[in-house]
């Protein structure tokens, strides 16, 4: 009985509390990609805790048909396992556990599928019109680049499969940006496409859409998109040819910050909702770019790596602990063979 309780306890603690310190942590903007990985590891850890907890509840209550057909050795092994799990053979509890596991997975999958279906529809509609109304330019790096003749500044990407996609830029943006800034903007969008940021953004959005009452998921859905923008900024500065040396790198930061401000203020007013939803990201990014870069030290990076691993694999370890113990017993034929 201990295993499901421990797993549900982990889910409640992490899901309820972990979001608060992480959303306030300052190091996240120094290592945005690691921070995204940690958010996702925590979120998926909560989901897998609940699912595995449900399965652990259901396991002892499974009808003996499942175990009956096994060989003598395996049956003994299963008995040892059952003794470890030591749950009451309540069919009701087992059914509830199974239901919990299925409903959790089901809601996340349904949410993710519907949002990616919607995204596909938007993308398709955009690409069809872009094909006739836009002018295809030759991108430097193989991705499709489309110019729209419109005075309103816009620069965005339409993520495609396999890390490819289309970058769209309006003539209004070209008018406002200097050449080096344009290169940075395109590199930023290219980073979104190459690093498949839409997958990360959709994952956190799907989780908060499915279980918005879990604080961790809400925080993740709010913070992950901002961190992804910062990661794309970093990649843009890393990959854009601006020469070499410290001074030039810092001037790339300034050029990018000014490009952000120029495009963010030149956009025509749009519904207040869109502004409220997105305003924070531009402010945080410009603030970050105005400061000198502060990469995390190797100690903190390795600590974070361990944390990500624990958050992700911890629930699985807890869930399989009884099985591991049973396997370590000598009666199990496949323990060390």
């Amino acid at each position, binding site marked *: 009985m201990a295993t499901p309780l421990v797993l549900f306890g982990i889910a409640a603690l992490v899901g309820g509390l972990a979001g608060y310190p992480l959303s306030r942590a300052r190091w996240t903007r120094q290592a945005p990609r690691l921070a995204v990985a940690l958010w996702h590891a925590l979120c998926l850890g909560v989901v897998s805790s609940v699912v595995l907890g449900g399965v652990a509840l259901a396991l002892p209550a499974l009808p003996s048909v499942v175990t009956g057909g096994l060989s003598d050795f395996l049956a003994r092994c299963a008995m040892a396992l059952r003794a470890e799990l030591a749950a009451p053979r309540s069919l009701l509890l087992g059914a509830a556990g199974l239901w919990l596991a299925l409903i959790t997975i089901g809601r996340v999958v349904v949410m993710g599928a519907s*949002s990616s279906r919607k*995204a596909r529809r938007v*993308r398709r*509609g*955009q690409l*069809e*019109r*872009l*094909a*006739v*109304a*836009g002018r*295809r330019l030759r991108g430097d790096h193989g991705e499709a680049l489309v110019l*729209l*003749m*419109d005075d*309103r500044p*816009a*620069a*965005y*990407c*339409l*993520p495609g499969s396999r890390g490819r996609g289309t970058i*769209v830029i*309006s003539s209004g943006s070209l008018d406002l940006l200097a050449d080096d800034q344009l290169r940075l903007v395109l590199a*930023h969008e290219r980073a979104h496409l190459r690093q498949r*940021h*839409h997958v990360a*953004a*959709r994952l956190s*959005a799907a989780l908060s859409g499915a279980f918005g009452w879990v604080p961790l998921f809400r925080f993740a*859905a709010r913070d992950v*998109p901002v961190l992804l923008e910062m990661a794309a900024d970093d990649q843009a500065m890393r990959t854009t040819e601006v020469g070499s040396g410290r001074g030039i790198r810092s001037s790339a930061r*300034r050029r990018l*910050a*000014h490009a*952000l*401000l120029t*495009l*963010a*203020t030149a*956009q*025509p*007013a*749009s*519904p207040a*909702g*869109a*502004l*409220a*939803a*997105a*305003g924070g*990201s*531009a*402010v945080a*990014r410009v*603030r970050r770019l*105005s*400061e000198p870069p502060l990469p995390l030290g190797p100690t903190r990076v390795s600590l974070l790596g361990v944390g990500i691993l624990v958050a992700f694999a911890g629930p699985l370890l807890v869930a399989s602990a009884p099985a591991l113990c049973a396997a370590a017993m000598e009666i199990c034929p496949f323990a060390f063979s």
Partner: protein
Amino acid sequence: MMPWGEKWREKWMRKLGDLEALVMEQLWSASEPLSVRQVLEALPDSRNRAYTTVMTVMDNLFQKGFVARERSGRAYVYRPSQSRAEHTAEVMEEALSRGGDRGAALMHFVDQLTPDEAAALRALLDQREP
């Protein structure tokens, strides 16, 4: 499908997409509805193009609602249902309205700032100017 098949298909789709753009150019610049033959003759390098290819492309455009068509004798004549500027405006408006789209259908370089926020950030950047 085999990898080369996939690649070939992609190339072909791109070609058709390019041809769509060329066909729309012709229809937009014409003063009256055009038949497939007229479009074919107006296209650059028209001698190397198959009539059926152009017909397929124009049928696709009709299916997407980008052109309207009516019978004229035995063939259809086509005219654009929206101007290029209208298409552009539609793409732009959809893109701009999806500023805070969490489903990440499209990802913007930057979202909007209020004038106050922008002023504060500009001041911050100027203050840190070396």
